[in-house]
């Protein structure tokens, strides 16, 4: 699946990133996120929601495992 949205950096847990998707849903991000560290970055992400995923974010929000990322 593909998601479009904006990267947000959270200050908790030493810092982690989330995607604020265009539909208003927030996603914790896992997988290929190395190039997605910048606050406010507009991106289109390709990947899957991992229902069994856990993270340091631990917010209860869905974890999206990024396979491919395109900056918009």
């Amino acid at each position, binding site marked *: 699946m593909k998601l479009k949205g904006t990267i947000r950096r959270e*200050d*908790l*847990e*030493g*810092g*982690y990133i989330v995607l604020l998707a265009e539909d208003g849903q927030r996603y*914790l*991000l*896992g*997988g290929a*996120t190395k190039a997605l560290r910048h606050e406010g970055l507009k991106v289109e992400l390709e990947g899957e929601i*991992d*229902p*069994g*995923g*856990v*993270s*340091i*974010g*631990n*917010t*209860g*929000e869905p*974890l999206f*495992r990024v396979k491919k990322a395109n900056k918009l």
Partner: protein
Amino acid sequence: MAVRTSGSAVPMFLLSSLAVVGAAAALATCSGRAGGHKSAGPQAAADLNSGELVADTIVVDFQDGTTKATYDELEKGWGIDLEFNSVEGTQDGITIGRVDPARREALLEKIRQDPRVERAEALVRVHADFVPNDPQFKAQWNLQLIGMPDAWEVSAGEGVTVAVIDTGIAYEDAGEFRTVPDLKGARFVQGYDFVNDDEHANDDHGHGTHVAGTIAQVTHNGEGVAGIAYKATLMPIKVLDANGSGTSADVADGIRFAADHGAKVMNLSLGGGARSQVMADAVAYARKKGVLVVCAAGNGGRGVVEFPAAYPGALAVSAVGPTGELASYSSWGKELDIAAPGGDKRLRGREEDGILQNTIAPGNPGRSVYAWFNGTSMATPHVAGVAALLFAAGASTPEEVEQALFAGADHARSGEWSERLGHGVLNAKGALQALGATPGGSGWWKRLASLLLAIALWLVTRMSLPRMFRAGFKPGAGFIGALLLSAMGLFFLPWLGLGSVPGLSALSKPATEWGNWLLGSGNWLFSSAALPILLAMIGLRRGMARGALAGFSIGLAAVLLVKAFTGAGVAWLSSSVLAAIFLALNAFMALLMARAVMHSAGRGER
């Protein structure tokens, strides 16, 4: 079965009951003492050294409510610049100011003449008996909040293994990885990297190293900061990748690995996602093996405790900031157990309101940094660290540790549990006091109670056998040795440096704990009269061994009764009432066993 229980059981039962009641009273006395830490203001003061005079500073205590304008006016005549000592100054009127040491006494005398001054004296610097020399210890408000300096007088977690199931730990120099300076010299055991499937659970993120630091940062080493259980042993388990995310399968594997390799406490500063039966089973497995599984409640800022914290058997931890109030980001809810400092940098916009530990720089596992993190992940290792202190101080089961944590928590005296703070805010000193641990005497009251009870039970049994001595039974060295062994264990092993050897360490505790490392805590075999009965069945009730068997049975009966009255759990019995009944019944059976052996000796059986 060859065991005989001839003689009237009724008088013995009545006498046993009297002994049980007596023991219960003794235990209640001990418990009462342990529970009184909250009203221990004077006690807290007694824990401090007499202090040292600060020659160039005085403290002036004005009448309550004295304003700054009032004392500013007075200062002019005294030739000193006073300021409120803290924000409390507007209420309590306490001010401090610098003076020339040579004219200090004369000035104090002059100040004391003013009717608005209640007290004026030289400032005294007080400190706890043990204050680590780590230069940034002063910045660790979180350790002060949970009463750490005092708790270190009792325990530093020695001999307890804590598994950090996280992004790994910067614990070895290998390839691009480096041990962070403030973990050099820390104790580690072999862990595992479930992300890369190798034995090197190095940290490529920083989160796990920070968490590990809160638990067991090397302390009093003149470097960086302190850790709570700095003599504990860390087990690095990597289940989260360089992004800080992982899978439920890896977490479940990590939990089982840690439980199978000697961890007594595990820290899971992670979570989220859907309920996973695989992970829930892993938590239950660890708990059954006597491991305390401490988990972060979550950072959702809502009334839902995330998984794995919400699974049965997990201890869920919410986060408070420096004020002791729930942090805005912290999750809370019906599964919450306790709160601990997780930091709250958003509250006042201050980095220093986070938790300071040594970790690696983001994206550079070879570079060390001291960083202020905040989150429920930071609260969780505070609880894991204190749990290690409790295990080291004599607690033998996760249930016992939980009870001490809850009873010792701040606000716990009201007895009220809340969805936001659980049983209250973690207090290490309170938890150790609730356990009955004191400096140099951790957990000894239970052993002492077991021993006294064993002697009482022996006397009761002897009274019910008036012809015993005429018939030739004499309690010799075997009887006394076995009674001491089962009631108190080989308690001197830790003094010989053998307290952390798997298997051997179990023998340093009373007989009911001997099987924990193989069968898990509260296992039915060692929590029952099965062992002496099995020993009798294989023939140990005859010849030289029967005295030892009788002593062992009486000691075991005493320990089982102490466990019954202190609310110890039994595996597979979810109800504490059922567990107490089970333990008491088995104590009675062990006593009957002892009586039968002694009686057969009295009758001259061979």
